[in-house]
């Protein structure tokens, strides 16, 4: 059986959802244009098979003092470096997949912004896998070798940190009703297979010269998943990908980044077959997920905080000019700082605390172009006109009639509250600034 394909209408609303979930939201007019130019297949392929090199368009990033970024050196600029790419890229799915891999192989502070950035670049490069290749590269990526103790894994003192997470979080999953897909012995044997990586410490530079040192590698036979051999780190990765539990783990996990309801068993199995048949390639699986009926018919999905922030900037065609690090943190997602090795908790993106972070972020973006409260403004602008203007401010995102009505009711209430002469224009000016915030923070902008 093939994976089911969505056969319904592919209009602006569907295009907007696609651009939010497979990227960082539309720039003004982009969703309408995508729906006009392409059918579903064409729209998905425009994202999954971009032509040419990635380009960054729009204003170059600066810090809050207007100076160029120093991504390797200045505190927080590593995060700004990546957020900028999310905002300005012409290949948004490439950056979105990189963000997915960052969550999947969640690596936090490794005391080197260079290593963090280089890992993100690895994710950008291998955004569409194949997964077996990605896994190999991540395993010996310097940030990962530091983060999960790969360089502390010596044949005389095996360190199990990477071995365990490789199986539990990256390839096979924790125990289910049938128990763990691997044993504690497998953890230890994997750790031995993974021994040998090391690096040198250089004063004023830090860790350099990451390499496999044969003297540190345990060459004796290991038994992993019941197979015995003188396995090394490449075998370690290969055995995980070939393990019978991997394909289900992979499909369920990848699916969860795009669709907030589980795949039916039939869909899941069809995706598993596709994944294995195509040699662990990621692109065909992503394409099938992006064309699946559940993607368009199912419930809205809360946007990850960093996606929400990047999307607001895209909608305003603004670049990086603020210190987003603390605001992203407040909203619950600081890049290069996942809470732990299992990544961010996507079931808890929104609560009263993180709502305040999103509010702060929206105020920052809206604030760049907030109308000065001393400026002159219409004293007669109608509620409908005010709402239209505020929605247009964010590139006309598709909002429900109910939301529009609530906004108009608010606008009407402010108009009615303007009793004194001086309030007629001033309240309408303040109302416009407020309406922009109401649009930016409304539930339809928080989830897509």
């Amino acid at each position, binding site marked *: 059986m093939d994976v089911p394909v969505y056969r319904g209408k592919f209009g602006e609303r569907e295009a907007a959802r696609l651009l939010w979930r497979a990227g960082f939201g539309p720039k003004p007019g982009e969703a309408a244009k995508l729906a006009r130019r392409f059918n579903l297949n064409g729209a998905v392929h425009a994202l999954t098979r971009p032509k040419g090199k990635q380009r960054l368009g729009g204003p170059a990033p600066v810090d809050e003092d207007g100076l160029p970024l120093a991504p390797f050196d200045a505190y927080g600029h590593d995060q700004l470096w990546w957020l900028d790419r999310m905002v300005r890229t012409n290949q948004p799915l490439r950056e979105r997949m990189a963000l997915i891999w960052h969550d999947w192989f969640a690596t936090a502070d490794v005391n080197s912004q260079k290593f963090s950035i280089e890992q993100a670049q690895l994710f950008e490069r291998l955004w569409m896998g194949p997964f077996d290749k990605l896994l190999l590269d991540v395993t010996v990526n310097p940030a990962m070798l530091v983060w999960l103790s790969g360089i502390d894994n010596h044949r005389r003192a095996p360190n199990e*940190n990477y071995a365990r997470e490789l199986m539990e979080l990256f390839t096979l999953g924790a125990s289910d009703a049938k128990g763990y897909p691997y044993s504690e012995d497998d953890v230890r044997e994997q750790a031995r297979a993974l021994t040998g990586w090391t690096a040198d410490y250089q004063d004023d530079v830090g860790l350099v010269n990451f390499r496999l040192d044969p003297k540190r590698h345990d060459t004796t036979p290991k038994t992993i998943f019941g197979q015995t051999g003188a396995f090394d780190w490449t075998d370690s990765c290969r055995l995980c990908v070939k393990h019978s539990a991997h394909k289900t783990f992979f499909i369920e996990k990848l699916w969860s980044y795009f669709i907030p*309801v589980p795949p039916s068993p039939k869909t899941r199995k069809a995706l598993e077959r596709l994944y294995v048949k195509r040699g662990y390639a990621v692109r065909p699986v992503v394409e099938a997920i992006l064309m699946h009926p559940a993607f368009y018919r199912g419930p809205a999905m809360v946007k990850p905080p960093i996606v929400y922030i990047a999307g607001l900037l895209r909608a305003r065609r603004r670049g990086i000019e603020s210190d987003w690090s603390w605001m992203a943190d407040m909203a619950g997602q600081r890049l290069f700082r996942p809470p732990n090795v299992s990544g961010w908790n996507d079931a808890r993106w*929104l609560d009263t605390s993180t*709502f305040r972070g999103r509010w702060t972020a929206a105020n920052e973006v809206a604030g760049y172009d907030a109308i000065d409260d001393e400026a002159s403004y219409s004293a007669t602008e109608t509620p409908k006109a005010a709402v239209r203007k505020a929605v247009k401010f964010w590139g006309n995102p598709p909002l429900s009639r109910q*939301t529009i009505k*609530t906004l108009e009711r608010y606008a009407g209430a402010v108009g009615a509250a303007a009793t004194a002469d001086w309030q007629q224009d001033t309240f309408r000016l303040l109302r416009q600034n407020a309406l922009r915030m109401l649009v930016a923070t409304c539930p339809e902008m928080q989830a897509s």
Partner: protein
Amino acid sequence: MGCNHCEEFSRSHLMRRAAAEAGRGLPSIEPGMPPPAGTGLNRRSFMLRSSAAILSVYGASKLSFAGFEEGIAQAAGGNDRVLVSIFLDGGVDSLSVLSPTTDPIYRSMRPTLALAEGTGTPFAEDPSLRWNPAAASFDALHRAGKMSVLPGVGYDSPDQSHFTSRHYWEVGALRPNEVTGWMGRLIDTIGTPDNPLQGLSLDGSLSPALATGSLPVAALSGPSYDLWVKNVWGQPEELMYGAVGELGRAAARTKDAGMKTAGGAAAQAMALKAQLQPFSGEEIVPPVPYPEGEGEWFGESLSALAAMLHAGLPIRCAALSAPGGFDTHDNQAESFDTDIRVATESIAAFQADLEARGLADRVITLVWSEFGRRPEENDSGTDHGAGGSAFVLGTQVRGQMIGEFPGLAQLDADDNLRATSDFRGLYCSIIEQWFGVDAAAVIPDAGAFGRAALIG
């Protein structure tokens, strides 16, 4: 695709199939409120506000704000007993808290990490063990008879995943799919339907150990709930917050799970904002000093908790995490002492605070971690292990060792420390001896675990 229950499918759920499902099972979050001024509850509400608190109430859909006030009023000045649970995240290396410094096996297994012979003070109940000098404040508590030590706590067939083992401790059972926490079920047994403060998380989000089946509990974080918008003020601003809430409530009423979540958060945020508005913040001045510097927020949380208890807030179980990361796979020597010092000194300060405030006879504190670490070091750190240590402190605590140090001569099948006491037995002892209820109502298979003489 019949299933539209968004909550039942998230990556975190997937990743932690067996773990922290208590989080998945949580009832929806609702904003709580300190009672408004002029209700005769000013002092308590003031304390809530001044504890730098944002309060979120979980599972209180039937709880009116009036009911919330009543719940607090009824328990005003209450003498109810309280349990504080402090989690040391990552798996504390118990052999670096209480070390068998003269054991040659220890010295050979820990060539770089062993506590030097002669350092630290002997553990009064087992002189073969010595306290890490960084945990000296625990030694003092123990010598004063205020701390029971469990030097080998764990469970059979230990799981070495952080998430799974922590989950077991949180739910009080070796049940991967259990959705309520052990303290949550205790609150379901001893609590009331109108008091969300009876189970209080101080980590901002709800501790899975406090997830109840039916009764409301709450989570706090700080430091204030101010929102602002550039160039919006006066009536347009006030009306705007009303509109945010209205948009949120409308979305929360739809059938779409994502919209419900997004709308619910907005509506809760606005309710919270309105409710906290009448109160002005003021600093808490604790009667005793707490450690300053790195991790001082932990002491601040504990001092806020002491102040809230002092104000008569009806808290029964509170949960929070200590600072620091105890998952010391590498460079353990560089972080461990600092982290354990901050944790133990802050906890000791909390105990002194409770005593100075006259609350000490009704509060006990449990300090725990998801597992201990592998006795044999891995060069610069230690890997995940099994048997670990836990501590129970308070003036009413008997101060007698529970279980014994398992020793290094005989390890378990995975070369880890054996467990000489079971955490579920400890929970049963707390439930029965401190709260006076039958543990069978809270801990599955409660009869299977030995009880320790913990209180009195």
